[in-house]
């Protein structure tokens, strides 16, 4: 049966964790979290040793746990990132030159084997990807709706900020619309288990979701214009600057990553 997927994070659940829980990371300034995400992206891009990447991933996993977030759900949410890793790194594990692990399998196209270098590459790419995925989810699950909306309004240029704010607001509405349409079809005896024999049903549900979105946007236009919309959706929240000790953590992260990259990766002499 097709339902809304449980291996894609549900934005409603993510927001519920941010609004209802109160872990140590909930009290960290949202700008600090954005800064750390940037430092992690840089780190997983320039770090070149599996031990270092695995250590970084382990540290992020610990932070996720300290924030009071559930590991079991995280394992389910890894499905899609792992699919991306397997789709790129899977073939590379076989093609990467190096010493084969446990001999080679003869095929009509030649010998097929996973090499040690291929295995290390697969592990490296997994650690790189999952480190940032885990911290992005940690940041999303510990930052309140109003703070995210405020930062979207500050970070993005107009009109992208307006579009992003409306998207954020209406994502929850559209998911419920889609869920209602699926439930309604199921209650009328629909069967979603096979795509090809039900392709018109899928098209009708997805079409109605888009149609609902378009008609909501038309109603929204009237209410926005009635309130004198002039290209600015006013945000009432405020996210203050990070406190000095958090600022030191962010700056320290960048200095450590850039320093390591300069010395160990690019060979800059001290």
């Amino acid at each position: 049966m097709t339902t809304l997927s449980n291996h894609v994070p549900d934005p409603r659940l993510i927001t519920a964790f941010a609004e209802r829980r109160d872990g140590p990371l909930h009290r960290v300034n949202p700008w600090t979290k954005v800064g750390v995400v940037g430092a992690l992206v840089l780190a997983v891009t320039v770090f070149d040793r599996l031990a270092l990447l695995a250590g970084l991933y382990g540290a992020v996993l610990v932070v996720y746990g300290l924030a009071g977030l559930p590991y079991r759900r995280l394992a389910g949410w890894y499905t899609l990132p792992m699919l991306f890793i397997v789709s790129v790194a899977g073939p590379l594990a076989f093609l990467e030159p190096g010493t084969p692990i446990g001999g080679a399998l003869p095929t009509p196209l030649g010998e097929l084997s996973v090499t040690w270098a291929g295995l290390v590459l697969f592990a490296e790419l997994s650690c790189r990807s999952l480190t940032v995925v885990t911290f992005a989810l940690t940041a999303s699950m510990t930052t309140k709706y109003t703070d995210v909306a405020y930062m979207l309004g500050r970070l993005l240029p107009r009109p992208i900020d307006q579009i992003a704010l409306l998207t954020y607001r209406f994502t929850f509405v559209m998911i419920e619309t889609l869920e209602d349409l699926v439930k309604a079809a199921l209650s009328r005896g629909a069967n979603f288990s096979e795509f090809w024999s039900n392709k018109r049903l899928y098209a009708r549900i997805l079409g109605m979701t888009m149609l609902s979105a378009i008609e909501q946007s038309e109603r929204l236009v009237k209410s926005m214009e009635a309130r004198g919309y002039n290209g600015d959706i006013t945000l009432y929240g405020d996210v203050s600057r990070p406190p000095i000790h958090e600022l030191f953590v962010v700056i320290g992260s960048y200095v450590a990553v850039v320093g390591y990259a300069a010395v160990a990766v690019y060979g800059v002499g001290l």
Partner: protein
Amino acid sequence: MAHIHLGEGSFPLWALVLWTLLGVGLISAVVYRVRKGGIKTHQIALAGIGAAASFAIFQLNIPVWGGIHMNLTGLVGILAGPLLGALIALVVNIFSAALGHGAVGLLGANTLVNASEAIVAYYAFKTLMGMDWDVFPASASAATLGLSAGAFLMGAIIVISGVNGSALPRGDLTIAVAGLVGLNLGVAVIEGILTGFIVQFLASVRPDLVGLADRDTQEEPTGVTA
């Protein structure tokens, strides 16, 4: 958005900078065109809620090959046009990255891929409708074409960039990536057919949305409910 996203840290630093700059360039050009033309309130509302719908549809598991997810980027391009379609692709990528789907550092590359899907689908649909094709074959072909363009661009981006930490020569990498592109082309056909049925359905209830009737003649909403 039938393609498989590129994982974080897959590319070396120079490639990350290159694709980010190209992505920023594309979005800057789109924003400039949008601002120059004077964006209307209904365009902002359509783009915002259209992106929300695209993001919501991604939550649905389609039972093909064990389960696939779609954002219907081709459909978004056909309905919203190339400029708004590109902005929607960016916004959906930002929200996806925040939920661990896609990559924060590869927002530029992913936006290039998805924007190309929306832009190609829009122009292909307009061209085919101009040649008097019926709605279903025109929209199915346009979406398939757009998604295929995105799949090839994604493959090209990976081959040009190389994979971080891999010693594989570009020729062998091309072979590895060809399988990935082939898989995406298969999904593109499925998503294209689904897009065709959706556009056919939309044309039957709101022909103005796909340019088959004057938008001003549409007086009452269809009142979609479950």
